[in-house]
């Protein structure tokens, strides 16, 4: 559970945790590509962050935690498995790009603070 305030570090922390979890979910899905009756898992985060931020606007603080869920509208193969390699790779690419962006923003923020400390 991460507390969201108006501080940017909180949002980045929550987002990085979510990306980490999503990467694990994708790894699990790809590892179980051919496992009979395995259902793919995904991470729900953006909607919850939105809610937490709205709450933070009102109360000054909101809670957010990434959640695992099983998508229900997926196509199930003959062996009861619904993992699709292309989908997982697409998610992985997006996830990597977002993760990079968040780390860079965090880094930028630290650079700003260092700059301020030097003066």
């Amino acid at each position, binding site marked *: 559970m991460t507390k969201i305030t108006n501080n940017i570090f909180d949002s980045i922390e929550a987002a990085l945790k979510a990306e980490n979890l999503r990467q694990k979910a994708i790894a699990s899905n790809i590892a179980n590509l051919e496992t009979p009756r395995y259902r793919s898992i995904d991470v729900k985060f953006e909607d919850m962050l*939105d809610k937490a931020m709205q709450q933070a606007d009102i109360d000054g603080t909101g809670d957010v935690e990434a959640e695992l869920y099983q998508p229900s509208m997926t196509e199930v193969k003959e062996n009861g498995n619904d993992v*699709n390699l*292309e989908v997982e*790779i*697409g998610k992985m*690419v997006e996830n990597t*790009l977002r993760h*990079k962006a968040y780390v*860079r923003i965090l880094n930028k923020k630290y650079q700003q603070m260092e700059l301020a400390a030097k003066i």
Partner: protein
Amino acid sequence: MEINNSYSPIDIAMSGLRAQDKNMKVISSNIANMRTTDNGKGEPYRRIEAKMRAANEGISCVEVDELAEDMSSFKEILDPGHPDAGPNGYVQMPNVNLPMELINMNTAKKLYQANAAVMKRYQQMSETTLELLR
């Protein structure tokens, strides 16, 4: 704050990859059943074609709409010794045309590669943007 769920280039390229993956399945089924004289309903195997469709208007993902059966007539060959031969000695063979399937397979392969290339290029583009954040 509104979350924009419109398609990203990665989603679109991904839908292309999925569609061609399905198309490849259809083609392999056609080739595997090229000499199948019985489909369980007293007919030879009927060729299948994956029909693609845009998921919505404008910028759109692609999806396989339906697996349509090819209703063209079956080929007939003379083979009186065949267990599925009719009284006149002719056997009905599937309406699969191997050269056509091979061409479709090449197209599917190229389209798959193209979609993968789009995804890779978009990734590179995004990384260029991320370089500005350094």
